[in-house]
Every structure is written in structure tokens, then in C-alpha cells.
């Protein structure tokens, strides 16, 4: 399935744009997504950490991803 990924902060710099498309197997998990992104964008691994949000909620690595989900990469936040 083709998944659209939103990127913010330093993740946007790493991807070179604010949204990217990723091809994933149909029953992919957040962990699978992170793994495939890190293959394509090794700089992600140098971040202190980063989260994945699914439909505006922080996701767990074992959560399943569906084609209609809104997925975002959330680098370390620094509001305030």
C-alpha cells in the first residue's frame, strides 16, 4: 500500500520535503514504517528520538497502519 507521510521540524529537512510517499506491505506496523524510513533516510537514526503519530495520536511500534490513516513523523518536540 502507498502511505503518505507528513514531516515536521528536522524530519522535514531530512526528507527534503514536508510530505513523502512510502510503499509498505498491507498489514505493516509503525515499527515496519520506522524501519523502512531509516533504511531510506539513515539520518533519522541520529535523532535523539522520534515518534510516529497516527491520526493525530502518538502511536506504539506494534500499532497497525492502514492506507487511510494520517501518518506523521514527530521529531523531538520543542514548544514553549
Amino acid at each position, binding site marked *: 500500500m502507498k502511505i503518505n507521510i507528513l514531516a515536521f521540524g528536522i524530519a522535514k529537512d531530512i526528507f527534503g520535503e514536508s510530505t513523502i510517499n512510502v510503499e509498505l506491505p498491507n498489514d505493516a506496523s509503525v515499527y515496519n514504517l520506522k524501519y523502512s524510513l531509516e533504511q531510506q533516510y539513515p539520518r533519522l537514526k541520529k535523532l*535523539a528520538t522520534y515518534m510516529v503519530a497516527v491520526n493525530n495520536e502518538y502511536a506504539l511500534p506494534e500499532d497497525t497502519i492502514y492506507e487511510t490513516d494520517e501518518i506523521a513523523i514527530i521529531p523531538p518536540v520543542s514548544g*514553549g
Partner: protein
Amino acid sequence: MLPESGGIDVFIGTVRNATKGKTVLRLEFEAYEKMAIAEIEKIAAQALAKWPVQKLLIHHRTGVLAVGDVPVIIAVSAAHRDAAFEACRYVIDTLKQTVPIWKKEIFEDGEVWVAAHP
């Protein structure tokens, strides 16, 4: 302000002119707006559940801010000051941990996304 209010604790964040001795020219804030609002609302609900807070205001700006500008304001009113102080501190501390807002510090010789790298 409610007549029952005995105190209002206001935290006003301001843009500093330096970080670790390096001159900061400006800050650039970016938000994942929908999720940021959702996370801010969660923090507000948690504060309202945990302390006898009467009114709670959380305001955060995005975009380019100069030194001295105000990116964030938290205001909490309660019957007694303990609740106001504690809830206000809780809100700003938690906001900094969970709300998907990012700031980039612009220095004379480059720029850095805060907290991105270890």
C-alpha cells in the same frame, strides 16, 4: 476572572537572546496544528482534573519570533494559590514534552532544531 478566584498564576515565555553563550538572532516555530491542539486540550483536561482550577488559558504562537517576543502564555486561576502555581507549572512542563511544536534557533553562523539531536 471569577469572584471565587483567589489567585491567577501567569507564565509568559519570552525569546532569549542567547543559548549556551551563543547569540540567538530569532526563533522559528512550527506546529502540527491539529495534533498540537488535541494534545494541548488533553493537558488542559488533565490539569482541570488534578487541581481545583477555575480558569485555564494556554496560548502558543508559531512562525518567526524575534528576541523578546512571546511564544507561549499559560494563565491559571484558582481559589487558592497552590493550585494555580502547581497547575500552571504542570501545563508548561507537559506542553514542552508532548505538544508537537518545534522551534529552530537561528544563530549568526547557522540554525539548530532544538532538542533534535542528543
